[in-house]
């Protein structure tokens, strides 16, 4: 146990320092969802209100609707960013140092995941504070009840990032990840439009959105922000976290993983 704690601390401190030293990254992480919130949502002209769907109790503006989706977006980008840093570590050689630590591989990856999630959650709360300043408010208790949902969603998307990073050999391939993972995941979800609206245009699109784990992460956050629990999204998010984490551990396993095959 004594060996675990310093390693955990070292990994999280490194991640935190990296984050603190990259102020632009923090700013970029904040600007992205704010642009969506203040420009895209304003231009969407849903000033007359969206129909009531749970967990909402009354009519809401589009700005209010997309807040949970944008929290999900922050966590998604953060998960990918963390995977990018792993690819960078691999190129720079510091990953070799990390992976040779006399600790189980899963623990090292989990420590990395926790650190990334912590930063993602921090970014989410900063975003929620800015949204609050623009009068896009939530139930006061919702800011607290959202914490476990944000952590779980952060873990799930971070685990996805870890799993993906075991596939990516070079930094340049990250653009591919952007195109093939982030965008489909974000747009084919309930982050920007309610699923019933998707069903109106295409049943197939609706089914794809409903199967997308990102949709469930967003719905989990949405319900938690309104002091409510969504059982199905919770189950889906937990399952997806386990699957992605298992994939990441397998991917980084030196004996039979993707690291060896590729590297």
């Amino acid at each position, binding site marked *: 146990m004594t060996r675990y704690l310093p390693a955990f601390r070292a990994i999280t401190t490194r991640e935190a320092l990296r984050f603190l030293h990259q102020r632009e990254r923090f700013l970029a992480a904040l600007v992205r969802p704010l642009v969506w919130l203040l420009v895209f949502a304003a231009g969407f002209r849903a*000033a*007359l*209100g969206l129909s*009531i769907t749970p967990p909402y109790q009354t*009519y809401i503006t589009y700005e209010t609707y997309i807040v949970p989706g944008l929290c999900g977006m922050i966590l998604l980008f953060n998960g990918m960013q963390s995977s990018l840093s792993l690819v960078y570590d691999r190129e720079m050689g510091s990953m070799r140092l990390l992976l040779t630590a006399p600790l189980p591989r899963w623990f090292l990856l989990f420590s990395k995941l926790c650190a990334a999630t912590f930063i993602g959650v921090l970014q989410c709360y900063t975003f929620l504070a800015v949204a609050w300043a623009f009068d896009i408010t939530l139930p006061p208790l919702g800011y607290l009840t959202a914490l476990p949902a944000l952590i779980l969603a952060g873990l799930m998307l971070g685990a996805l990032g870890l799993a993906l990073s075991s596939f990516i050999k070079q930094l340049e391939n990250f653009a591919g990840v952007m195109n093939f993972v982030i965008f489909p995941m974000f747009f084919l979800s309930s982050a920007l439009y309610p699923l019933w609206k998707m069903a109106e245009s295409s049943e197939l699109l609706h089914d794809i959105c409903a199967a997308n784990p990102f949709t469930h992460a967003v719905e989990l956050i949405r319900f938690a922000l309104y002091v409510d629990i969504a059982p199905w999204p919770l189950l889906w998010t937990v399952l997806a976290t386990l699957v992605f984490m298992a994939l990441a551990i397998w991917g980084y396993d030196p004996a039979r993983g993707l690291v060896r095959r590729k590297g």
Partner: protein
Amino acid sequence: MKLTTALATLLLMTPAYADEIWVTNEKDDTISVIDVDTLEVIKTYPTGERPRGITFSHDFSRVYICASDSDAVQVMDPATGEILHDLPSGEDPEQFVLHPDDRHLYIANEDDAITTVVDTQTRTVVAQIDVGIEPEGMAVSPDGKIAITTSETTNMAHWIDTETQQIFANSLVDSRPRHAEFVKDGTELWVSSEIGGTLSVFDRDTQAEKAKIEFKLPNIHPDRIQPVGFELSAGDEFAFVALGPANHVAVVNAATYEVEDYILVGRRVWHMAFNADKTQLFTTNGVSGDVTVIDVASRKAIKSIKVGRFPWGAALRPTN
């Protein structure tokens, strides 16, 4: 000891009645009763055809309902929901107001261009006053001396002396005036104009316009902003104005006549009623068929409650 326990048990068993908001549903020919504590519909009562205006007698033992298409004002026992009798009302009664004497109803007869005064005790028509075309909004001053009828097509507020039952003044207002209220202890008359998109403020003594309130909502076309019903908060500090198809309720500072806020509610908001301590406001949303509950202090909509089709009028029934 046993008696105390028995009394305590009895007290616990006695159901605690919450105040109610009564909502008329134009298309369903019903009234939905909302429990103010649980914010749920607890009862639905059938009425005559196309119920719109609704008001309670001062002791809340009777409720008057304008059943427009039945050409009657119905009197209902609020305890049982039973229609006790109809009052003679003239044709197509839409809105009415109960005089402070708790006895005379002033009813706007939209199709006949008259205002009918009915004695609710003798159930007779006391007077019929010729007014402008399509009368709609009705108000009476707190001292009971002046009654107001607004006529939608003539675009006027008619000032009626309740002693002589004669019009003594007319004030021009913007297009299609729909609702009128005396505010600030009856020193001002406020009239909303649906097509004009404004709320006019008149001085009671001179009948002259002293202010005009206009509304502007970002991303919503001005044509959709159609002020209809409105209510004043505690101490007549703020007015909450229903903006019809703009799906918003405006909050107007009654002292400065400035619009301070807009609150998103359901589709096509018509009228509204406060709870007993005026901390919550219930708006009837015609097209979406629900009632939105607004927290007055935070000026936020907290819940929308499904009622019948095309809810129109609303009134509070205190039960304590």
